[in-house]
């Protein structure tokens, strides 16, 4: 398993430093190469530059929110097909609909997910 994972790049776009720190620590332990961005604008820039295998995206963030970043990302030649998991605390239908509209089918509500299950989900996604 580790072999498959090794070298896969994950970008965490999240304004909550505690969450970014925790996730990157946990995912690094699994063998992923993890980097972070603290808002949508920074996330978009990093994503376009480093082409991560998976983007874990929050929605409510300063400067540029997650859904705006997603829309911008889908306009990019590479970004059109990039893998995205939305990990947020919002659970409104409207945001979910926007996500699906932009080909994101993993819309996870933070407080509903165990860290362990979240890691499993990420691994599955990158198989």
């Amino acid at each position, binding site marked *: 398993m580790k072999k498959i994972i090794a070298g896969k790049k994950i970008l965490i776009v999240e304004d909550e430093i505690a969450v970014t720190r925790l996730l990157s620590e946990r995912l690094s332990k699994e063998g992923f190469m993890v980097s972070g961005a603290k808002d949508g604008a920074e996330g978009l820039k990093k994503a376009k530059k480093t082409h991560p295998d998976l983007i874990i995206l929050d929605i409510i963030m300063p400067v540029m929110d997650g859904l705006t970043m997603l829309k911008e990302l889908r306009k990019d030649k590479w970004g059109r097909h990039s893998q995205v998991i939305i990990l947020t605390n*919002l659970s409104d239908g409207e945001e979910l609909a926007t996500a699906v509209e932009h080909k994101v089918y993993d819309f996870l509500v933070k407080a509903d997910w165990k860290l362990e299950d979240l890691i499993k989900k990420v691994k599955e996604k990158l198989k």
Partner: protein
Amino acid sequence: MLGGILRQKYAIFSNILILAGLYFVSRYNYAIFHSFIGIVIVIIGTIVFIIWNTRRAIKDISLEEAGAKYEAMFASIGDGLVITDKEGRTTFINKEGRRILSIGKSKIIGRIFSDLWTMEDEAGKELPYKKRPISIALRDAKEVKTDDYYYVPTGGRGKKVPVSIAASPIILRGKVIGAIDVFSDITKEKNRIIELEKFKLAVENTSDHIIITDADGIILYANKVAEKITGYSLKEMVGKKSGKLWGGLMPKEYYVKMWDIIKNKKQDFFGEITNRRKNGEKYEASIDIAPILNRRGEVIFFVGLERDITKEKSIDRAKTEFVSLASHQLRTPLSAIKWYGEMLMEKDIQEKDRKRYLKQLYASNERMIELVNSLLDVSHIEMGTLEVKPKAINIIDAANAVVTELSYEIKEKNIKFKEVFGADLPKINIDQKLIKIVFQNLLSNAVKYTPRGGRIIFEIKKNRSVVSISVRDTGIGIPASQQSKVFTKFFRADNAREYDPNGTGLGLYIVKSFLEKFGGKIWFESEENKGTVFYAELPSKKK
């Protein structure tokens, strides 16, 4: 000549003849010729007398007959009828007339009608004699019609009756010889009109928008509120369809369903709708359309009721938004606590990691407490249940207490903190707990957003009838483009979020709400990367 006398003075003439005849008989009773002439004269006189009397009797019978005929005829018409002679004396009144005026025949015949009944208008003002219909008919030989007056019996007899009157002159050979007054009791109609006026007033003055349309939806009537809500005048609405004026914004299916219910099923339609005012502004309304059916069950009208619920809807949306944002804000520290807890429970955890995780968990929990407190404050503010217990206090004491609480952070960040408190500050009537929250928010913001080695000046002074407070820092400032949103709940400026991700966006909203509750106000000046000054004013008037 003789014919004329004969025609007009039968009685006198016949009597003179008889007397003259008798004179001849007594004067010349021995002269046969003369007494014969006397007897002939007496006979002629008697014959004339008999003829005259008979004619008079026949005439009387025919008059009586005519009266009976009139009576029968006028009884069959439902109106009251009075005939007067040229002086206004009543010569005839029919049964209905006696009923309406509740009077017997004998009491009225031969009397001046206007002496028995005066006329008054709605307000009880008497119509002068000269202007009454009978007077006008007699004087000017004119026909007069009116529905505006009451017959009021003089001398306090009976009750006043609203009447519809038509008076016309009776003209014989170009001369007015009397008048006919036809009148009907319109008490029922009057009451109906009064009832109708009541309904009209109610419809006019209700707070809902009401329109009445024909079966095709063409507007026949709209009340004042309809004019106010839609912005169209009654004139602009009548004859048009509402769909062409303010409607048509909903999906087609909405209207199809609505028409099916009201026109085919003939039931009431209830719903919510978005319409557009004349000025282009959209509004939301709850609507209720009822079809009005005739006896055959066909729709003759629609009555549409609308209530503008734009404000309610926006409050509703704000509440939903608040709940959604509040739950989002609460979930953030909660998920951090949850995941750190999970990591702490892992078997192969190292001691240094355990400490780190615990520290994070603790910090997240602290944030959670702060957030819940703020949310409670906000909820009290919004629901209007904020408890304010004013007491005469020295606000310098409250200010010092807060500064002491923050002294550790001030020292740690090496911030030069200066207090400038006026010496002549009066005690003010204020809630101590709430004013402390105001100071805490203003000062902790200044400390939080001022880089190491910066400066903060905290000033409280008396300024005429107010106490002025200011907190001046050399912090990161508020971007000009976001300054208008600073007091909005949950709002955090981009640079503030970047500088310190932990924050609720509720502090300044709470401060502003509290100050306004005290009768005070707050404003600020700020420049990005230079600093911010928050100014607050509190009324110092002692109660």
